[in-house]
């Protein structure tokens, strides 16, 4: 699967590329408008990560070009603009998702994963990973063909983990995923520990291997 990162900030582009890079992904980068236009006309990508503001033209024009050519590439807009208007505009133009800068890479990973799931697997609602099977539509999870009794939060976390498998996810990124802009309100990560602990326990009880590993004080890693 190929991912195109259209982002004028090379360092950010590199980070995204390094983070997403795995056996199943190949990342390409375009640092300006014309390169991006050239690449989208020549190749097909599973997912395009698109910065709206870039030198030489607007990311929205790239999006329009894609739609005009009936390309089915999934598009994730990353933008520093966070107003509702900008989001609506981006999504109306045909983007699949909209992520505001600055973001955590695991958040980007989970969003890209969701887009790819929709695009590649034709909206198939079942995600299989290890002994687990997640039903996206019904928001349920099965372990070894047995339904897991998960809270909404635990299910969310599990889905988030599967979108970032084999990567270390920082506690900050996780807290922000759950609470959004309100993570400041929490003050500490205590609420996170409780949920992870419960999720881990339920997975172990269902006969799964210990997928969720704590990485020092940094965060967690979901390994399959």
């Amino acid at each position, binding site marked *: 699967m190929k991912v195109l990162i259209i982002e004028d900030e090379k360092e950010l582009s590199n*980070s995204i590329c390094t983070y997403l890079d795995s056996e199943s992904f190949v990342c390409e980068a375009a640092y300006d408008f014309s390169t991006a236009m050239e690449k989208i006309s020549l190749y097909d990508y599973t997912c395009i990560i698109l910065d709206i503001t870039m030198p030489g033209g607007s990311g929205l024009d790239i999006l329009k070009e894609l739609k005009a050519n009936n390309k089915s590439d999934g598009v994730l807009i990353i933008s520093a603009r966070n*107003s509702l208007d900008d989001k609506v505009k981006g999504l109306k133009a045909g983007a699949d998702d909209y992520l505001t800068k600055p973001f955590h890479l695991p958040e980007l990973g989970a969003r890209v994963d969701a887009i790819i799931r929709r695009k590649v697997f034709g909206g198939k609602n079942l995600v299989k990973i290890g002994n687990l099977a997640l039903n996206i539509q019904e928001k349920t999870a099965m372990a070894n063909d047995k339904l897991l009794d998960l809270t909404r939060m635990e299910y969310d976390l599990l889905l988030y983990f599967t979108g970032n498998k084999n990567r*270390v996810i920082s506690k900050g990124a996780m807290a922000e995923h759950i*609470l959004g*802009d*309100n993570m*400041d*309100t929490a003050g500490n990560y*205590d609420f996170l520990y409780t949920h992870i602990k419960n999720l881990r326990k339920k997975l172990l009880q269902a006969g799964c291997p210990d997928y969720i590993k704590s990485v020092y004080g940094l965060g967690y890693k979901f390994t399959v």
Partner: protein
Amino acid sequence: MKLFTRYNRINLFATVIIFLLSGLAFYFLLKYVLIDQVDEDLKIEQHEIQTYAGKYHQLPEIIPVRDQRTGYMPVGKDGGERQFTSIWLKDTIEKQPELFRQLIFYITVNNQCYRVTVRKSLEGTDDMIRSIVTITLATILLILVVSFFINRLVLKKLWQPFYDSLAAMQQFELGKNKRPQFAATNIEEFSIMNETLSQATAKAHEDYRYLKEFTENASHELQTPLAIIRSKLDVLIQDENLSESQSRVVQGAYEAIQKLSRLNQGLLLLAKIENGQYTETATINVSEKINVKLEQFGELTASKGLRVTTAMDEKAVIEANPELFDILVNNLLSNAIKYTPESGNINIIVEEGLLEISNSAASAALDESRLFRRFAKSGSAKEGIGLGLAIIRQAAEVSGFETRYVFEEEQHHFLLITDKN
């Protein structure tokens, strides 16, 4: 105290003092002159008696006159120099004590020494002085009344441009686009003052705009490097060779960056609100909004064991920008949750025109004057970024709402008055 009042007071005081002093001086001078006049008369009387005695060798016969009494008294020897004195005597008719001026001198007629007393009534003089004092007092009163009205009318008219400028300045608010307009005046001082005020407000306006732009630009410029640092750290922690001590270092950096990002977002949000980017309004049901928000915060209230009670008028609606109101409610609730101690209470009251959120206090009352300022953190709130309440106030102001803080019964009450009537 008003300038007029002050001026009038000084003016009245000075006028009264001057008139009293001059009245007093006038009184004594007049008295001196008049008594001197009487003394002259008495001297003439003496002269007449002496001339008569010298010519006829006998004392003149006493002719009774109403205002003048003369008396002779034989004495053993000459008493010396003549002397003038003032004396109170009973009036023969009215039996009232009356002031007389008397002259005593000695005269020798036919080897007999007489003491002669000539007395003249001062009643006429007194009358004169009295009428002069009355006239003086009447004049003072008249001048006072006239000057009072002149001050009132003329000064008020003269100072009108000053009051106009003052009113214009009172309307002036930094950050609003309206500059104060000063009416033209042909009085030099006021015209200079208006010009100075005009320049000062323009300068303040310009400085403020510049500062605002700077904050906004700085925040914008910070966005990208922050995003890069954060992404690099996200990549760095993937490294499997990271030791535990290195991880701790990364963790520290990671959290600082996180805080910096939030701070920056807060500043950007403030700039956006100030720039009036949230203008479109819609009718919003307050209790519905609160319920949605409470559900979003459910995770946090549950983990802290907070008890949330509500008393909401479900029909209460407000006219506001939906995004801005979302920010307002979000920050108010977030604040309440953040600063309520574990298993504390949060109460929410929604009425027409009022939203009140109160929470159990871990500390004493907060200083309201500093509370809504940027970065005006109290000592206990280390984890906050110090912009929450500033954003609340800014968002409320832009929406035409009023924010208020009250400390009552060990609870912090934050009030959002959405309808000032």
